[in-house]
């Protein structure tokens, strides 16, 4: 198992290389540049800007320069300053050397803030939102799927599955404003907009204040974003459990004299979760990267707006950095999913 994890982390390096090359290539292949305006800038200013950001270099050189800033730590014997050039995600000290690592560079648009600043402040919020949406999806989806299966063809089943169809078919852009109005404005249960955590974050994305002050902001958007996925999980769980209870080994369990409750909890559930776990990886990816509309609806200062506008603005460092960090995050999340999968199904052994 240990070897498997190491292998997967090596595979992460390959993924990052491929993702970075493709992203870099594609974003430069798209016509237009970061400094194109309605009214074109004077050529000499344009030239200066391009030189300043190495955009006049061949693309392979640009890629190399960018990746070096991100991947290779830089050390010197004096403090790094709080300037755009000296900024980095991680700063540390080795002996009497001051080092910095993972500099995602300046944003071409927000002059005052580096990409690192955006990643410190905005990206964690989107990741939190994605993680919580998945949690909501599981908390709602698993029990209702199980209940629907156990009470097959009863009112519970029909009601649950009707809500599930509603859940997948109503998009955030409809559900979100509705929730803001009903629970935020009319009932006043939750603040209609905003977010309840500030940097610095534990491990770069976990908030330090996990109390009501945090969740009162997070609950509505997490539900809005996660509801569709919870419906998918519910339907899959139901189908899977209905399939499993017809298996021969469930009959064996009954023939041994187990109580029906134990037949389900000890023999059926673990098996029925196996297919559910396989969709968690892609579902998580979709949730974490698909927070844009939710953030817009609930006024959340997350990554969504930066990410979407960075593409139209050709803000190359923001695009690259975001995709790289999401890739790392998702590869690790998929690794966790695979480990859960191996735990559930002993026929899968990674070695």
């Amino acid at each position, binding site marked *: 198992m240990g070897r498997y994890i190491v292998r997967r982390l090596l595979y992460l390096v390959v993924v990052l290389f491929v993702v970075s090359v493709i992203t870099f290539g594609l974003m430069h292949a798209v016509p237009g540049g970061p400094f194109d305006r309605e009214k074109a800038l004077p050529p000499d200013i344009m030239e200066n800007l391009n030189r300043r950001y190495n955009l006049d270099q061949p693309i392979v050189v640009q890629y190399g320069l960018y990746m070096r800033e991100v991947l290779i730590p830089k050390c010197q014997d004096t403090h790094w300053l709080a300037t755009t050039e000296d900024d980095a995600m991680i700063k540390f000290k080795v002996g009497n050397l001051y080092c910095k690592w993972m500099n995602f560079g300046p944003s071409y648009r927000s002059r005052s803030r580096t990409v690192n600043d955006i990643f410190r402040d905005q990206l964690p919020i989107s990741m939190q939102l994605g993680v919580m949406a998945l949690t909501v999806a599981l908390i709602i989806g698993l029990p209702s799927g199980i209940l629907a299966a156990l009470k097959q063809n009863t009112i519970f089943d029909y009601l649950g599955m009707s809500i599930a169809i509603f859940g997948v078919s109503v998009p955030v852009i409809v559900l979100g404003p509705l929730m803001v109005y009903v629970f935020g404005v009319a009932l006043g249960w939750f603040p209609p907009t905003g977010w309840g955590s500030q940097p610095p974050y534990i491990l770069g994305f976990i908030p330090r204040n996990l109390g009501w002050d945090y969740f009162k902001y997070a609950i509505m958007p997490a539900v809005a974003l996660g509801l569709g996925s919870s419906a998918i999980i519910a339907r899959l769980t139901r189908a899977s459990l209905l399939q499993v209870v017809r298996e021969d080994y469930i009959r064996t369990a009954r023939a*041994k004299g187990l109580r029906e409750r134990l037949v389900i909890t000890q023999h059926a559930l673990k098996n029925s979760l196996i297919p559910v776990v396989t969709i968690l990886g892609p579902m998580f990816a979709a949730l974490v990267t698909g927070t844009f509309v939710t953030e817009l609806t609930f006024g959340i200062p997350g990554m969504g707006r930066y990410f979407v506008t960075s593409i139209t603005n050709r803000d190359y460092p923001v695009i690259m950095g975001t995709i790289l960090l999401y890739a790392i995050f998702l590869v690790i999340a998929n690794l966790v999913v695979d480990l859960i999968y191996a735990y559930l199904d002993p026929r899968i052994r990674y070695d």
Partner: protein
Amino acid sequence: MADLFNVQGLETRFRTREGYVHAVNGVSFHLKEGETVGIVGESGCGKSVTVMSTLRLIPTPPGKVTAGQAIYQGKDLLKMSDEEIRHVRGSQISMVFQDPMTSFNPVLTIGRQVAEPLEIHNGMSRAQALERAAEMLKMVGIPNAKDRLNDYPHQFSGGMRQRVMIAMALICTPQVLIADEPTTALDVTIQAQIIELIKRLRDELGMAIIWITHDLGIVAGLAKRVMVMYGGYIIEEALVKELYGHPQHPYTIGLLGSLPRMDEDAHRRLTSIDGLPPVLLENPNYCPFAPRCKFALDHCWNENPQLRTIGPDHTVACWVDPTTGKER
């Protein structure tokens, strides 16, 4: 001696899109302590549904036991509460299933699955039960039994898995073992080993056995009495010797005809019975075997024969005497 297990007039139906499948039609049989009986018939004739109905293990819906009783030690299994029958299953009456591949839970260890009946019926702790499970696995011939408790089903071969299933069924030393085609899914050499194993365990533990098979050859060396099923009916029942020596139902004769025998001319081709077993959507007013029967008379098409006693310990449901070809 009183019967340990007595089933009377068992009737099971399955609701399907085409209508109600009459899977078991008024089946009666009995079993004394320590006795082994065989139930034989082509696949689909209702053998499994018969025994599963008595333990209420058929999927409901679509299945339903619509009539009959199954008296075990004086109590009707079909009228018991769920909690009562739960105490019978796996502890008094155990089952070994046909397919050792699919009958184990793939995500639980073998030790856990074998030990489970002891935990639920004898109130043993997991540790105690596992210790006993290791002994039981050793008894059924699993090498290094103790080390294999933590293995999963897929780490065992088919034959070994069937041994494990037998250990699991016998761990609470039940009075009755129902073996539903326990060797059908196995290679011939392994089949013989499993049969030997069950014989040995029967001698050591003294349980009664209901042995289900579609192979009359297997049951000959094992059972004292054999019932032959067709279309959800028992159509002949006799002591083994009598049944093999003087089969009275044309279907039994057909089954015996399809059996390779050592003492016969090796060039003789195996005969098999033409046609397919029926799927009964109603109780027929003719003999269900008539469409495939070469002895069929007019009477056979007009009335479904009931079981009749034609000799000591020999009953048959047939209008025809196969030795003469005339109505008996």
